[in-house]
């Protein structure tokens, strides 16, 4: 800031103004303000009995939250695990199911996308299976696999395969004709064209498919785990049985936070593969 004093006129003014006119600063201030109002409303409301009986105050919940995040990894039997363990269990299930789904969906999507015949042949499956609620697969999974762990992974797999498959197919089928013409005039083989042109050209679509799939996988795991044995979903279910509302709120917050982190990873990846295409 000191330097800006030496630069006269407009530049100095432009440099100093931002602190209050800067969009980010103002957005952050608004965010803090709304958060403060919300917490205050919650605190006063809970203390003066505006809500149903048993709703904890904001301070209680924050204290509880602090306790859980400072003691994430304790272990007192299967029904009393630290939240860190439960988070890791959920993440592991998501990772296995999601990675398996992606390994199937991306190559399959590319194959379907580049071949009109395959597109027509497989599209009915995709359209029929895509709208099914993930939880509808649960009984079938339990019956076929006879194992709650495997069933959880199966459900993640079956529900996170579609967005990646559909986006990859779309990306591979809609590669800019100019790129394909370049490849053709150079006399590139089919394989080289797929590898060097179609896949990189479809990459932004593939990544956004992966991003949607990841969001769905994280949505579904919590629901599925309520009916399974461990993980964050089960934690919520268990705390509901204990009627511990603050713990439920803590878990909800952690689920949201984890989803946010996962999504931002993919958002960064999307930027990385765009190369000025959608900027």
């Amino acid at each position, binding site marked *: 800031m000191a330097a800006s004093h030496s630069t006269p006129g407009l530049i100095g003014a432009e440099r100093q103004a931002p602190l209050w006119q800067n969009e980010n600063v103002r957005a952050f201030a608004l965010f803090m303000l709304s958060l403060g109002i919300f917490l205050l409303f919650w605190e006063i409301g809970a203390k003066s009995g505006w809500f149903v009986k048993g709703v904890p105050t904001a301070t209680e919940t924050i204290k509880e939250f602090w306790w859980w995040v400072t003691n994430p990894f304790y272990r007192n039997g299967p029904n009393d695990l630290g939240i860190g363990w439960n988070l890791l269990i959920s993440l592991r299930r998501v990772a296995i199911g999601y990675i398996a789904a992606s390994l199937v969906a991306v190559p399959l999507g590319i194959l379907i996308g580049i071949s009109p015949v395959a597109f027509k042949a497989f599209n009915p499956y995709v359209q029929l299976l895509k709208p099914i609620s993930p939880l509808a697969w649960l009984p079938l999974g339990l019956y076929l696999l006879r194992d709650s762990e495997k069933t959880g992974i199966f459900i993640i797999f079956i529900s996170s395969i579609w967005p990646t498959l559909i986006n990859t197919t779309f990306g591979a089928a809609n590669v*800019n004709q*100019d*790129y394909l*013409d*370049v*490849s*053709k*005039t*150079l*006399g*590139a083989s089919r394989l*080289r064209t797929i590898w*060097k*042109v179609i896949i*990189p*050209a479809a*990459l932004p679509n593939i990544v956004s498919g992966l991003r949607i799939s990841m969001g769905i996988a994280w949505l579904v795991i919590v629901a599925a785990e309520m009916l399974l044995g461990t993980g964050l979903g089960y934690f919520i279910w268990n705390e509901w049985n204990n009627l511990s509302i603050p713990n439920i709120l803590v878990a909800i917050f952690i689920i949201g936070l984890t989803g946010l982190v996962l999504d931002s990873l993919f958002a960064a990846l999307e930027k990385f*593969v765009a*190369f*000025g*295409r959608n*900027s």
Partner: protein
Amino acid sequence: MSIAPVNAIDLANVRSQTAQLSIRQVAKVFPGKKDLFSKLTGKTRRDFVAIQDINLDIEPNTFVSIIGPSGCGKSTLLNMIAGLSPITSGEILLNGAPIAGSGPDRGMVFQNYALMPWMTVEENLRFAVETVEPKISAKRRDRIIKEHIQLVGLTGAERKHPHELSGGMRQRVGIARALAINPQILLMDEPFGALDALTRAFLQEEVERIWEQQRKTVIMITHSIEEALLLSDRIVMMTRGPAARIDEILEVPFPRPRNRETIQQHPAYQGLKAEMESHLFRETRAVEAERVGG
């Protein structure tokens, strides 16, 4: 003005002795929709004859421009030469042999550059060179890439991605990529069409300079009379579509190396320019008249 088909074939046979590329009686028909389903939905479309009776012989080391009213089928013709679009009837011979699809003996420069956005300048060239010659040694490959980047004046921008370059610079990459595979013929479809006037003029002179160095056979589509006069040895003027034909071929006698100022001093310049203007004006006016009438 139209050439009778019989004469045209005779003419083609005489000329093709020395021709590098011969286009013989080529026509392009875009098939319509006449199946039952289209009939039921009332969406039938008749066959569309885009170009017809095209005969043209191009000798080695000549720069040929194709000019004609918009929509007459210039791109269609060039895409058939490039092998990107099938020939409906007639044939195109390259060194006496009919072309079968596309191949690296013809390099193409696209109007909207068609650079791969995920590849740097260098990688775009490398992709072309390695596709054409997969077993090339790394040393020779890098030398070719470096030479061509230098040729189009892009040294220093090797590691940039296309979106970091201006339109003019992108088309330089497009030209470098087409030349790096050392094609026999360079095909350019309105290569400067998307550029502003100044960049366009500058790149035209660059192309003239590069052409003096390499003297490759070039077929270029353009809408600009000045551009055609500056660069070409021959100018092919097409009639309006549908069923567009070649109307007239002008020889451009200006000595090389050329530049904008010297060719304007040439006695033939104004005459050629006036002839092209009147041709284009007549065809375009007829297109507009048909549009209003129909």
